[in-house]
């Protein structure tokens, strides 16, 4: 009986050796595979870190260059922006600014009206402010009655049609309707009486 136990222990030891050998081989394999794949991953990370350092250096130099280019031209850009803003204040103001608009009509009248070349605004009537369908802007409708020579009538139409130019700084306007009538006597003297409906635009802020 004792001999059997003794032998069993020996066998058990042998089995233990085999078991641990198998485990060791298995674990070495598993850990080896795990290490291999993770090492690949780790190496990629290390490589990425090294690459990123190059990218960072490159980006830093590009940013410095772009920034200095921007700073060098900023004065020009700011002047342009200021110029546009200043023109916009007159061309496309933030409010209806009807007083300024009335003065502008008066100025045009005084510049245009001559003894032999009539242009007289007899009436200006401002109406209720309207908002565009898309809400992008507002307009101030107004109706004017004018007596003018044919030449000045054309000038007036061109004045409205060219309005909104940043260079001329004339308030942005649009003719909605014109009604002209010619009396025979007026026609012969070259005077046109017309009434015109105009929209003067401004920002919807």
């Amino acid at each position, binding site marked *: 009986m004792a001999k059997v136990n003794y032998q069993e*222990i020996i066998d058990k030891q042998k089995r233990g050796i085999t078991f*641990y050998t198998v485990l*060791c081989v298995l674990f070495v394999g598993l*850990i080896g595979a795990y290490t291999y794949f993770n090492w690949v991953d780790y190496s990629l990370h290390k490589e990425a870190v090294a690459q*990123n350092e190059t990218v960072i250096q490159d980006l830093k130099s590009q*940013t410095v260059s772009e920034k200095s280019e921007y700073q060098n031209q900023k004065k020009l850009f700011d002047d342009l922006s200021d110029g546009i803003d200043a023109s916009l204040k007159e061309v496309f103001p933030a409010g209806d600014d009807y007083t300024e608009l009335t003065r502008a009509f008066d100025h045009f009248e005084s510049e245009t009206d001559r003894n032999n070349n009539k242009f007289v605004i007899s009436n200006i009537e401002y109406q209720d402010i309207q908002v565009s369908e898309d809400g992008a802007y507002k307009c101030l409708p107004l109706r004017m009655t004018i007596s003018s020579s044919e030449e000045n009538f054309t000038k007036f139409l061109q004045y409205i049609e060219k309005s909104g130019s940043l*260079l001329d700084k004339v308030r942005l306007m649009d003719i909605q309707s014109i009604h002209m009538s010619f009396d025979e006597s007026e026609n012969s003297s070259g005077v046109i009486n017309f009434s015109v409906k105009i929209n003067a635009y401004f920002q919807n802020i």
Partner: protein
Amino acid sequence: MSFLEKIREKLPFEIGKSETSEGKEANLLLGKPEPFGDEKLSANVPPKKNLIGALLDKIRPKREKTSALDAADALAAPGEEGYSPLIASALKTEKSPTDERILDAPPEIDESLLEGVEPPKSILLYVMKGAFAFIVVLGIVAILFFMSQTTHRLDFVTNSLNIPSVLDELDKENAEIKDLQTELNIYRFLQGKFYLNQVSYYGDEYLRNYYIKWNSTIPEEERKAALAEMTKLKEKIVKAFDLAAEKLTKKKGIVLIDLSIEDDSQYEVIFENLLSQKLEEKASGLASESANEAASEDVGSTVDSGGKLYSQTRQLVSNTELFALLQNTNIKALDEHEFKDLIKQINSIVENELGSIQKIKEARINWSDIMNQIELVTSYVDQYFSEGYYEALGGIQYTSYDFDTSTGEITITGVTKRYDTTNFTMITNLIDQLNASSYFTGVEMKSFTKSGSADEGYTSTLSLKVQLQKEALEDPDDKIVPDAIPEFLEKETGVSVSGISVSGINKNE
């Protein structure tokens, strides 16, 4: 001292050395041969106490009793040389229990004495266990190492112990790249925005000159000057457009090594969002600064203008239509009409005040040009229209115009006067001529009345409703050439357009 030697020392028995007297006896019991040679030399090493030794002490008296017989048997049976006399005797007894039994039956081995006897520990087993433990520890170390380096699971440890992690390092670098690229994009977009402002500003001037050049009511000299100005402006616009394209069409993103991002195309969106976010922050920061410094008007306006710039620049970030336009347009190859269209297109897709202005300008009608067209068309029918010969020679005289932008409708009323009774022909010629114009359509008059006499002239009133063709107003190629006389007037109507000679006739007669 090697690892195996260390293990050997720790063991309770000797390996590779001669056994102690007890060990020798144990070997005898097991039937193992006695050591010899070098092994014998090491027999002087003091014996170690072990269980086998203790057991052998117990059985020693029995062995002493039979020692004399054993010695004789050993001599008598040289064939059993490898075994102890006791075992040899037993074997001998088994082999020839009757024939060769000289002495009494050999004493039986008390196997019960071996109860509790353990075989020697296996070194290999210890080695294997040790190796396994080592491999397991190594595995855990490897797992911990890679987990700490390539995942965020052990960040609480690495951060608290200040252990460097390659993933952390990568994340920090990625964040730095994102910041730098976003900063770079901001400067590019701010510049791009300024160049687009230049395009809009010079473009506005270009459009104004374009209007002058193509408006037939404007004097020729002014139109020539406008053309010259357009050429200069085109150069400036082309330069600004190319620079805007250079700044705005560059890639906004960089491909990073980031496990959370699977598709590289996502980086463009990520960097776009970062750029938008940064511009928004700057815009809102400046806006609140502007509100705080509202007391100081100058500072407030500067800050506010900066806020507007950032806000408008932000609108460009996702403007793919603009980028496609900038990338795919060969601006130098455009003629003046295409160039004008391009400026309008840019103004419409770039969100700013100029865009709204552009929309309004595009919707309005140049009535001076329309009136000029009406006069021009009328002059095809009445050669001396509006030249003051109406009373003397007859012709067409308009008494009122009504223009309505919302409906695009024009109502013209007037009178025709003829001395040859062809008033109706003149009116229908006018209708046909207006309908033939690319500017007008739907002109008709179904009721004709005439009165007068050959001496005073026949008069006929006209009332025309004319519909504008707005598409034609946009296309300068369709404009009527003033010198051209419509073919149908010469071939079909029979109405003289040259009329009678006006020499010697007073206009006001």
